[in-house]
């Protein structure tokens, strides 16, 4: 191992500056380019038209524009890895002043790297706004006959709320980063004041770094819901279909997401309890933050009740959905520690936080995404994904994910983003656990590679889905009524008409244990 990786940080292959660049790029790419784009970007475009019975998205042109903005944004972000001063290295949150001055002496990544980060992010925000508007317009206007709002699958509800979050939140981030670029290029002082560099007082006057943090987290916090809410939608659908049971408390689930979205905009400052913000403001944010536990708890209990007394078909998608619920519980509960400002004082910016958000919005969101890919793979490629490899992927991933992030809770005194911590007596003794975590991280990576290999293999060589068996999971929703081959317009002939909610599984009517939405209600059947 040593010949490949070097021996620890000292004498290893990673310099501290590059380490901070990687930390920053890891956060940025995973939060925005993988989890945001991978969940709401891909599944919204796949599932919204199919599940509401539309021929296409409301505006194909906006969709295209959104895609190319996203593509360009990705190219710009990755291009910053190849410039002389390296990519941005001040953390994915881009806090000024470390990122707010284009001075490579303060921080090497604060040169061109940060400019490219800001430019890329501006493009990303445009992409996200165009996409979001399109999702909202499509859902509100293009539902097929009979598809009232409360007959929509929870996936569509989740994607609608996600789009609303994005459209309201991202402009704040755009404002935040553009003002920062003004500080950097035009020497304005939005975020800077009383800066002394090398014993010289700089000209910046009257700004406040805390202002940036408010603007950033006004998107930054809704952003975690932009990531987790679509995953919740996918998981709700998958749990219900594979339990052969209706989702428990459909309306409560919709209202819960609605409440989470509203509260999601009122809790941003819980990321800033110890930034020097007025403690009184902090106390208000404690109240709203802990309130979010209520709708979240409702969702968890409803998911568990959904699988209670079901007939669980344990496909890889179902296992990942159950894994999602487990992760959401584990990570959500540690949020109760961090959301309480008092307890947050020692825990803020430590590995406890790293463990918390990686479990609740990293691993959980990934599990939701994996569940979605396994479940809708036949819809995407007309072939089934290999189940055996899926099971290996699931069990290795859930074991590794907990082996990586659970022990991190015990590193609760260690500040995050430390290149080395052995120079502190206080943090000595954490080396074994770091090694343990690293080993599982590498194994986990190999398992994800297997997933990619499986996708490529199954897309070309997997078992084919035929048009006679186009509804392999016995699902009620409309996407499984379309032919296997893809063509523009989604349905040959007329669009299907909807007569019922999407969760009539095992309701005692008919021979099968599912009642597609296109089936008219029989006498005696209850409308939901």
């Amino acid at each position, binding site marked *: 191992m040593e010949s490949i990786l070097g021996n620890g940080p000292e004498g290893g292959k990673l310099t501290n500056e590059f380490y901070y660049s990687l930390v920053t790029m890891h956060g940025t790419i995973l939060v925005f380019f993988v989890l945001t784009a991978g969940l709401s970007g891909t599944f919204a475009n796949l599932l919204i038209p199919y599940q509401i019975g539309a021929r296409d998205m409301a505006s194909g042109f906006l969709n295209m524009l959104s895609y190319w903005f996203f593509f360009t944004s990705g190219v710009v972000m990755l291009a910053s890895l190849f410039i002389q001063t390296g990519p941005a290295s001040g953390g994915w949150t881009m806090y000024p002043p470390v990122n707010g001055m284009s001075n490579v002496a303060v921080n090497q990544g604060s040169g061109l790297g940060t400019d490219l980060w800001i430019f890329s992010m501006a493009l990303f925000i445009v992409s996200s706004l165009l996409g979001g508007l399109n999702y909202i317009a499509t859902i509100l206007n293009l539902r097929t006959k009979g598809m009232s709002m409360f007959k929509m699958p929870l996936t569509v509800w989740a994607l609608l709320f996600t789009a609303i979050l994005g459209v309201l939140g991202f402009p704040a981030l755009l404002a935040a980063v553009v003002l920062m670029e003004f500080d950097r290029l035009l020497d304005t002082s939005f975020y800077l*004041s009383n800066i002394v560099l090398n014993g010289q007082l700089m000209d910046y006057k009257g700004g406040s770094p805390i202002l940036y943090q408010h603007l950033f987290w006004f998107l930054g916090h809704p952003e975690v819901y932009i990531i987790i809410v679509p995953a919740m939608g996918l998981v709700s659908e998958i749990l219900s279909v594979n339990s052969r049971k209706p989702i428990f408390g459909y309306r409560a689930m919709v209202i819960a997401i609605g409440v989470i979205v509203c509260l999601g905009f009122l809790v941003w400052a819980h990321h800033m309890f110890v930034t020097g913000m007025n403690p009184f403001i902090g106390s208000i944010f404690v109240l709203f933050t802990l309130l979010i536990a209520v709708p979240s708890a409702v969702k968890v209990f409803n998911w568990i009740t959904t699988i209670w007394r079901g007939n*669980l078909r344990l496909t890889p998608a179902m*296992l990942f959905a159950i894994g999602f619920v487990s992760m959401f*519980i584990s990570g959500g509960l*540690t949020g109760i520690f961090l959301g309480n400002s008092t307890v947050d004082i*020692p825990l803020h910016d430590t590995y406890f936080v790293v463990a918390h958000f990686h479990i609740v919005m990293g691993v959980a969101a990934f599990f939701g995404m994996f569940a979605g890919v396994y479940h809708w793979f036949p819809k995407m490629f007309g072939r089934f994904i290999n189940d055996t490899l899926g099971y290996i992927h699931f069990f290795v991933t859930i074991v590794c994910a907990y082996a990586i992030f659970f022990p991190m809770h015990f590193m609760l005194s260690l500040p995050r983003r430390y*290149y080395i911590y052995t120079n502190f007596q206080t943090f000595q003794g954490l080396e074994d656990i770091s090694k343990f975590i690293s080993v599982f991280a590498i194994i986990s990576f190999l398992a994800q590679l297997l997933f990619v290999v499986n996708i490529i293999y199954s897309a070309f060589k997997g078992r084919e889905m035929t048009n006679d068996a186009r509804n*392999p999971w016995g699902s009620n929703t409309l996407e499984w009524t379309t032919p296997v081959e893809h063509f523009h317009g989604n349905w040959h002939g007329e669009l299907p008409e909807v007569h019922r909610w999407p969760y009539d599984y095992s309701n005692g009517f008919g021979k099968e244990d599912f009642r597609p939405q296109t089936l008219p209600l029989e006498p005696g059947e209850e409308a939901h």
Partner: protein
Amino acid sequence: MATLITIAVLILLYIVLIQVGKTVEKVRELRGESGDYEKSGNINATLMMVFLVLFFAGIVYSAIYMWPKLLPASASDHGLKIEALFNLTLLLTGIVFIITHILLFWFTYIYRQQKGRKAYFFAHNSTLELVWSAIPAVTMAILVVWGIKVWFEIFPNHDDLPKNRIVIEATGKQFNWLIRYPGKDGVLGRRLITKENVSPTNELGIDFSDPASHDDFFASEIHMVKDRPVEFLLGALDVLHSFYLPHMRLKMDCVPGVPTGLSFTPIRSNDDTRDLLKENPDWQKIDPETNEPRWKNFKYELACAELCGKSHYGMQMNVFVESQKEYDAWMNAQKPIYAGAAKADTAATAVTPETMEMGKDSTVAPAKEAGNAVEASTANAKH
């Protein structure tokens, strides 16, 4: 070579796995079992239960393993209150965690697909939903009320701070701390942040025309008196830093241009904590550098908890909580800044090149560099 072999082994591994996947799929197809999840469901449901048991066992094991490595008991009064709330939260969330996980995995096992099983149509139940909205709501209310109460005890009105407190100024800069003590008069000298007054030898912009500044001194380590309240006035010169005292369980950001603060009472001296750690097996281990048990050289430390640049991890400083007598003795040995300020010009030329050289190359031995940085600050302080 090792890299090549590793890659080859990995490629082989993936090929084997794909072949296994392919074979299983083929066998199922031949048996006409494609799309049937009953048999595999039995295995997977069992594995899920095995996972749950391993998961719980792993949590217990890691808790036992990590227990001696956790921080010793809180050394500040606020820390005790924070820990009490932490423990209550841990208890409540722990109960929820265990119950929900047992239900989740147990249901997965017992309700796995089986011949003849029919799912129970259960779409909603208002009473149930009301109950499990109300329980978390009430629990959260308790946590919020308790939390906010302690929060305001930790951050009281400035006028309510105890009069006998020691005031210390801590200013973060890349990559060390400037710790300024008020000296015998107990009053910190005024600062004048203007272009003229701030200079490489007076980065803080101390206004030496203020007589209160004449006995102020810089310290290379933080000293506090046991059971005597202390107030830290926090700030930063260049970028955000965060003043983090792990043993006190306290932390507060240092923000350029925005004064912040933190006040508490240290309740455990270094010696007290040392006595505690004597019993700790992890601290009884022999330190190879000193050939003594680790607890003998125990000290409190100050760290930076807000990413501030490439040597963020290097902002270490030793912290001492001691008796009033020891504190006074230490304070008497410190040299005021004002005495050296007269020689400022000559000192500036002596210090600056050294500081610049240090900044050039940091990657060779970062830990060492951090040490240098602290020394440099001491040099700065004593010039």
